[in-house]
């Protein structure tokens, strides 16, 4: 029995209990049908871990690493599909982890700044994926499209096992590392003087990021990973006043984006990944604009500067 099955067994009574109060014509099915319960549970788990990760990524100005690694995963998925793998996500995991380690090492050795190395990996591996798919004879099929834009319906039992394993493992590591991780992210030099293993912490963090990104591919798709990884954390930063409050707000924004996104995509029959991504962006825009308006009303004299 996989981890995903255990998680679903734990969650499904709660979901079924909530089902009667869930609005909508199609959305309640996410709380009653095992197939959709899997999707909902997977989406929620991924969102929680991605939110924590995103808060740390924003401190280090690494917002785009998720996007880079997601494209690398696509290359891995393509290789897996062409080689006839039953679960190409394992290929994606290997590719993504290797790329994350290489990007981290290039930065640590100051061979290249963060952005440039991410950009090279992003385009290089995406191109590899496209070429290999063409050579393999398939091109972009619906199966592959579901990896690009996410398709909650492809989450089978082994898919949920995969997501649960990565999410629980990463969450555990992040909780254990939290002190060292924050010290390293805020001020690496001071952390090194204090005697923290800055380099190993950075490396481990890269591997966690790579794994979480791959687990997100099924939920929002490789093209939209950043939406769950960065946008809720960025929105939280607008209103949070401490690191702790940012972590909490990130979860509030992330989880409500997923639930609203699933609701609207179910009711309006749109892709779930794109709807979730759209909602995260809308929440960000609403908060950002709202804040500007409130500030200009409260402190009009500031506009003179």
């Amino acid at each position, binding site marked *: 029995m996989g981890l995903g099955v255990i998680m679903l067994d734990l969650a499904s009574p709660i979901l079924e209990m909530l089902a009667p109060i869930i609005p909508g014509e199609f959305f309640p099915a996410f709380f009653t049908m095992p197939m959709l319960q899997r999707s909902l549970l997977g989406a929620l788990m991924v969102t929680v871990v991605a939110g924590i990760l995103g808060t740390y990524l924003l*401190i280090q*100005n690494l917002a785009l690493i998720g996007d880079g690694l997601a494209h690398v995963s696509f290359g891995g998925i393509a290789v897996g599909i062409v080689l006839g793998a039953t679960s190409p996500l394992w290929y994606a995991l290997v590719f993504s982890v290797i790329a994350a380690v290489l990007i981290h090492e290039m930065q640590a050795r100051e061979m290249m700044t963060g952005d440039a190395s991410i950009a090279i990996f992003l385009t290089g591996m995406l191109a590899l994926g496209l070429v290999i798919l063409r050579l393999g004879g398939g091109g972009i099929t619906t199966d592959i499209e579901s990896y690009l834009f996410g398709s909650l319906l492809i989450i089978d039992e082994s898919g949920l096992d995969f997501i649960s394993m990565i999410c629980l493992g990463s969450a555990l590591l992040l909780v*254990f*590392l939290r*002190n*060292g991780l*924050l*010290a390293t992210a*805020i*001020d690496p*030099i*001071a*952390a*090194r*003087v*204090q*005697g*923290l*293993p800055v380099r190993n912490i950075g490396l481990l963090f890269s591997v966690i990021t790579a794994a979480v990104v791959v687990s997100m591919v099924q939920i929002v798709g490789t093209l939209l990973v950043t939406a769950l990884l960065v946008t809720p954390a960025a929105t939280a*930063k607008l209103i*949070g*006043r*401490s*690191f*702790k*409050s*940012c972590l909490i707000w990130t979860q509030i924004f992330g989880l409500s984006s997923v639930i609203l996104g699933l609701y609207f995509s179910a009711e309006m029959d749109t892709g779930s990944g794109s709807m979730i991504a759209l909602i995260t962006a809308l929440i960000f825009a609403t908060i950002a604009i709202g804040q500007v308006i409130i500030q200009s009303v409260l402190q009009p004299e500031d506009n003179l500067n």
Partner: protein
Amino acid sequence: MFGHSPMSRELHGKIGWVSQAASNLPKDIKLTVRELVKLGTVNSKNMFRFFDKTRQERVDKAIKMVELGDVEDIDVGRLSGGQRQRAVIARALASDSEFIVLDEPLVGIDRDARNSLLQLLDNLCHDEGKTILMVSHDLTAIRQTAHRMIFLEETIRFDGSTEDFPDLASLATLRGIGHVHAHMHASHNEGVKEEE
């Protein structure tokens, strides 16, 4: 250093580091003073100890020492330069280190902040028994506060007690610019002071 080689494991938690004008801190992070100071208590030995009560006490004490009690829940991005410098010093203090290294702490802060910072360092040295090594361009500040000065310009030009440090005229000779009044320009110099 303390009888061990630099960066060796035995030194972890013994040295506190205060970066240049606290400018190493990312500008737009939401991190309260208290959260920042708490980071100073973490080292390789206690990284995974989550229920360490002394940590809280050390943080309280450090914040009190630098007199940032009334802004401890404000995020560091909203502090003034001098306050931020103090917050970073508090982080170094929270590590309980006996030896504190400050890199250009006086850059980018106003006169009042500078003076109260020097006062703080003086207290840390005399009341708390900390050894302080400060790198600074501010010769006056160093002469006012340090016990020992090392004057660096290409090489060590002076190393001795602060009272023995030459006056301005002989300093010019020391720097080899005694006769170049016409083209004299400020060259790179660093004063190092050490309090013990």
